[in-house]
């Protein structure tokens, strides 16, 4: 069994109904589980930008990328595993928080440059932005208090400097 690795694939695709299904089918057929998925209109309305995190083997990944690129609606599909790119993710944490724990949690949140979005009698909701490992780390810090809800947007990426994101 080949080892599975997490990959981040960015795709530039036609902005049409059904495109996401065609792409998701290629992932499913190659046995890749989609871990996160971000789709939105790109700079122009004809195209969408997708960023997909998925887990699977390197060999299968290569085959899958050629299969994705073969789709008529895919302008290109590229894996960014080895590239130095800007990566961001946004997450909302709803943490169990009685008034006596507030200062503690806010201090930790500050360290992560979190924004407090909502405070209630028993909960506090914090927004964290950054790369995925930062979100993971914050999640670990909050676990002892009890995270009652967590929503992550999934990763978006862009290449650095004047280089266009593939």
């Amino acid at each position, binding site marked *: 069994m080949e080892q599975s690795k997490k990959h981040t694939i960015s795709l530039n*695709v*036609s902005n049409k109904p*059904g495109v996401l*299904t*065609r792409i998701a*089918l290629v992932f499913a*057929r190659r046995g890749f589980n989609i871990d996160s998925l971000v789709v939105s209109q790109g700079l122009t309305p*004809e*195209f969408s930008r997708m960023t997909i995190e998925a887990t699977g083997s390197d060999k299968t990944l*290569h*085959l899958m990328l*050629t*299969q994705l*690129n*073969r*789709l*008529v*609606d*895919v*302008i*290109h599909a590229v894996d960014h595993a080895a590239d130095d790119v800007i990566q961001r993710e946004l997450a909302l944490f709803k943490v169990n928080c009685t008034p006596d724990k507030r200062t503690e949690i806010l201090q930790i949140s500050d360290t992560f440059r979190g924004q407090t979005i909502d405070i209630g009698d028993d909960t506090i909701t914090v927004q964290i932005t950054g790369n995925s490992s930062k979100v993971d780390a914050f999640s670990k810090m909050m676990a002892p208090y009890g995270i009652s809800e967590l929503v992550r947007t999934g990763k978006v990426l862009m290449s650095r400097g004047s280089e266009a994101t593939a």
Partner: protein
Amino acid sequence: MPANMKTSAEVMLDVLYENGVRHVFGIPGGNSIPIYDALTNHPLNLILTRHEQGAVHMADGYARASGKPGVVCVTSGPGATNTLTGILTAMMDSVPIIVITGQAVTPNIGLDAFQEADILGMSFPAVKHSYMITDPQDAGRIVREALHIATSGRPGPVLIDVPKDISAALIDPSVEKKRNLPGFGDIPTASEESLEEAAALMKRATRPVIMAGHGVILSNAAEELTALAEKMAIPVTTTLLGKGSFPDTHELCLGMPGMHGTAYANKALSGSDLIICIGGRWDDRITGIPEKFCPHARKIHFDIDPVEIGKIIPVECAVLGDAKASLTKLLPMLEAGDTSRWLKQIDRWKHDYPLKYRKEGKLRAQHIIEELADMAGTEAIATTDVGQHQMWAAHFVKSTKGCNWITSGGAGTMGFGLPSAIGAQLARPEATVFSIVGDGSFQMTLCELATAAVNNLPIKVLIINNRYLGMVRQWQHLFFEDRLTGVDLEGNPDFVKLASAYGIKGFRVKRSSDVRKTLKAAMDWNKGPCLIEAVVERHDNVFPMVPAGATLDEMIIEAPRRKKSVEED
């Protein structure tokens, strides 16, 4: 109707006609009536089929025989879903077809309307591309794009779903929209380095083999392939779909490789130091377990589709691009190596392990297949169904042109033979067309006998009747201790009477001594189609055979003398 307006259905048909399409295969229904209405006085010729699967196989046979796209027009719901088997068949074998399906009116889509099926969604994994027309003004553009996609690069099927209100809508045909395919169109061309590397590998090789696939036929590269083989003195094995890309009659031809390949093709591959695959995809029926496939041979792969490179077998050298263009560039770069000892070895294998069968006693399928193919000649078109008869046909039909051999390889679709022969005959009216079918396969699409009869097509249908699903019986016999389950076709009709019910001439042959006489009568029959039922030995098996999971050099060359002895061997 304003003088300059047309329905979008008419515009679609006009675009097809302008692009050389002459026949449309299909059967109408409620949601495709506007398209059929547009066909009423249109120069496009409608071939009314009896089932939608038949229509797609006809378009497929038409495309393979002519090199031009085949077009299907059916209705929504079950009409559309009935095309899926044919679409898969065309996809697996890279055949350019366009399938136009009717659809419920736009406001009803997604509401479980009568005869509504999400055929667009169902099509995704089985097509090269698919469309739903949502703006009638796009109809012409989409048909143009579909034709371009279906026929460019590696060909394949394209589906166009057309809601009834869209096909009936009036549009101004003079408003032409441009093709808009930003994600499609780059056909790779072979790099100098890859060609130099290929030339160097070929020069060094002492035991090279060329494995030619469907890509050679699709790119019309038969001449270049022959030039390559002759210049370098390299023997050529042709895959099931590549049959005819190199003449079966050529002294360098090894026939088919793989599970039911010739012993000499498989021995050549196993013993080679270089395999040059041109337009083939290392199918599992050839390579078996990829890690064990000819590990000592280097491999070169010519292909137009980057997906195929390294998909199954890792290769030392990949030449991306159209086979004809790549070979044309490669030929002047080549220096012949010395393959004389290798060719002598191959001649010995050909001499020692020929394909053979008995012409006396009980009638053998191979006998009547070979006789029919010989009588029809190398200019004739052969189509087949799927199973034992298909493998025997691959062994004994001599093809000298790729477009004369039409079979369902990748999908292995039973029921392909008769309708694809109808399509092939319509594509090339002057050619002799014969279809070799099994009694099992034939019954999956036999309703198309009506289509053949109505159109007075002089097809010769040879039914190899062993009253079994023979290939499955062979596996159950050899590998499941002869536990025969679900393979006895008890209840087969009287095929000669069946033909007669369709107004078709039928012949029956039971003895090997009658083969020639009966076939002669069938060949001379010139009043429309005829059917020949060959009642053959029931328990014959196809050999050579490479058992599943074994390597090519572990093939069983001849039938074991004792029954059920294969596993003990």
